């Protein structure tokens, strides 16, 4: 399936873009991240959380949406 991945803040600075599409045939967030790390090895050493369907999810979560977001630490307020 085709996944849209969104990047924010420090993460977008590393990937040099705000979003992109990946072809992905696996099941879990974890597996998908391996694909992303191949393109952006620096993300492996960078702290971020993953959001799916507007919720932070663990990396063992099954991908059910076509949009995934990588979120660096929050700094609101």
């Amino acid at each position: 399936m085709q996944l849209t991945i969104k990047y924010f803040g420090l993460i977008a600075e590393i990937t040099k873009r705000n979003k992109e599409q990946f072809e992905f045939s696996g099941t879990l967030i974890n597996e998908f991240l391996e694909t992303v790390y191949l393109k952006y090895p620096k993300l492996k050493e960078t702290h971020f959380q993953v959001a799916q369907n507007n919720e932070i999810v663990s990396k063992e979560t099954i991908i059910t949406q076509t949009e995934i977001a990588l979120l660096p630490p929050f700094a609101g307020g």
Partner: protein
Amino acid sequence: MKDKKPKNVFKEGAISSEFIATSIEKHQSKTSIGAHNIFLGQVRADTIDNKTVSAIEYTAYEEMAIAKFHEIREAAFNKFDLNCMHIYHSLGKVNVGEICMFVFVSSPRRKEVFKAIEYIVEEIKANVPVFGKEIFEDETHQWKVNS
């Protein structure tokens, strides 16, 4: 005044004192209110390694942020006896000394507003995907992390 539709709380740039004043004034017709509490976040000129912050540029995962603001709003209305609640957060560049967040709660009684304002602000800090790029006077930057 509770409503069920998510509101867009984001505002481009700093939140002005006139905007805050207008918001206060709008509550004067609500005569069951006895206490308001307002929290304002202001951009601080922090000094890190001899460099001083001159502005923060805010971005957000807007769709998720608006959903989270809505959840926080609903939870606060359920937990506390509030007449109204307003939340505004800046996007884009906010200079030091300017206001980047405005949270406003009103209740018949004061005890409720103290508990509510702290709850809402802490929930926003912890759960809303807003990102802040601290821009130093020499144009370099670092990414802010809430503590």
